């Protein structure tokens, strides 16, 4: 029984990796950009399943929503704008890259044999800092999902950096492609045609559910797989679906460009602001144990927020809550900004 369970896990691992390689080869050989982009979506979904086998539930969640959702939309928007035809093939141009790739690959395979065995619990990567996070989290942070604890608290400064990078990328896209539809474009005719009626009705039902699911993922992130990054991307899907079905002008009327920009900024400010509040109250930057001023924890009645022995974790809980909210706002607004940029530049066909 024991061996079989582990062997099934290992066999799934190998089968999914072989599928990934097959899809990767297909992408490399594909001359149609549209087919390559759709295969990238397949690649992301297969790798999401593989991530579940690897116990990386949070990463699988992210890969599924980002890889198969947002990045496909962005890539499709880009090929619409560049009007790219099939990729040209030139046999002379494949020889040098093939030699280079074989050489580099050979060196990497040689280096790889020195790595610890797959699944080794005593390897340096697994035995020290990762294990310490698992041991310390229940006492120091108090949230069941260790990935959230590391992301939001232990490595909060790192996550702030990632959030700012996402924000900066959003600004970059907006500066290059514009914040929304170009004023020179004529507005779209409002009614689309009755053959879209099924789409419109379904979208009307789905959009609130998608937004609701995003908030579930957001607030459930402490307890299970989920968190601000995943929820932000899911939340961004709601306006994007609206724009795809009802037209970009309708979406911008409901969710103005200025509001999206402000929300993205607000998220980064909220994240950094929590860090500054911790400093004002006598701790380090993003040290949530000092989120509340000294003395506040003493006046909260014991047992109000769970275990009184873990009163020091209230700061952690509130700190994680606020910075995850900041991540949600920034990621969602940035994804919508990026979409507005690509979609607004396209000359839409009536």
């Amino acid at each position, binding site marked *: 029984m024991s061996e079989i369970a582990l062997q099934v896990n290992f066999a799934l691992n190998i089968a999914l990796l072989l599928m990934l*390689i097959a899809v990767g080869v297909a992408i490399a050989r594909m001359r149609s950009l549209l087919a390559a982009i759709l295969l990238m979506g397949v690649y992301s979904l297969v790798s999401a399943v593989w991530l579940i086998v690897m116990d990386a539930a949070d990463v699988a969640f992210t890969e599924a929503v980002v890889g198969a959702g947002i990045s496909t939309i962005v890539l499709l928007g880009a090929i619409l704008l560049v009007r790219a035809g099939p990729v040209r093939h030139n046999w002379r141009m494949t020889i040098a890259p093939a030699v280079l790739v074989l050489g580099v690959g050979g060196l990497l395979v040689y280096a790889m044999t020195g790595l610890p065995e797959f699944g080794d619990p005593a390897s340096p990567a697994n035995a020290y800092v990762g294990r310490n996070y698992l041991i310390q989290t229940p006492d120091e942070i108090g949230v069941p999902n260790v990935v959230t604890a590391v992301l939001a608290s232990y490595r909060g400064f790192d996550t702030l950096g990632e959030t700012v990078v996402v924000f900066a990328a959003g600004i970059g896209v907006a500066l290059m492609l514009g914040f929304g539809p170009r004023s020179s474009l004529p507005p779209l005719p409002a009614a689309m045609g009755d053959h879209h009626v099924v789409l419109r009705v379904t979208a009307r039902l789905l959009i609130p559910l998608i937004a609701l699911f995003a908030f579930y993922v957001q607030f459930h992130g402490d307890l299970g797989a989920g968190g601000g990054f995943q929820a932000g991307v899911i939340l961004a899907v709601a306006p994007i679906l609206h724009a795809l079905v009802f037209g970009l002008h309708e979406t911008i009327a409901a969710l103005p460009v200025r509001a999206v920009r402000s929300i993205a900024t607000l998220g980064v400010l909220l994240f950094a602001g929590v860090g500054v509040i911790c400093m004002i109250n006598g701790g380090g930057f993003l040290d949530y144990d000092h989120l509340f001023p000294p003395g506040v924890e003493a006046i909260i009645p014991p047992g109000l927020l769970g275990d009184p022995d873990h009163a020091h974790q209230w700061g952690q809980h509130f700190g994680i809550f606020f910075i995850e909210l900041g991540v949600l706002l920034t990621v969602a607004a940035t994804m919508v900004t990026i979409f507005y940029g690509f979609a607004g530049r396209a000359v839409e066909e009536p």
Partner: protein
Amino acid sequence: MSVAATHFNYLAVVVLMMIGLYVLFSTRNLIKQMIGLGLFQTSTALFYISLGKVSGGTAAIKIYADSVEGRMLAAPLDPDFVQQFGVGGVVYSNPLPHVLILTAIVVGVATLSVGLSIAVRIREAYGTVEADEIEAVTRVDAARVGRDP
């Protein structure tokens, strides 16, 4: 087990990484190059996650050893193994690579968008996204103003 079996994941990562690198170098189409870069980036993610896997482990979400789930997860494993490498009677995979890759994926799509928007602007300025045609346009422009390219 042979090295091919114990290191299969790393081998697969190298193959995927080289596919990405090959796509990047073998085409002059900027969009296809971004796709190759995406493959390359994903292979790095697979490498990190492979390193963090612990055999017999589960997702790093705390469960109690005396719960139904805890007993189910520990049952197929050697008790000494659980004692040595588990935390509170349950063996978990390493959460740290998960955190790094989770944020890297979201940052990856944001930077992919920046790259694609640069490609869109290049298309608008040069009328093509093929790198060799862009070079040809630049050469013609340079010749027109009487300077060497």
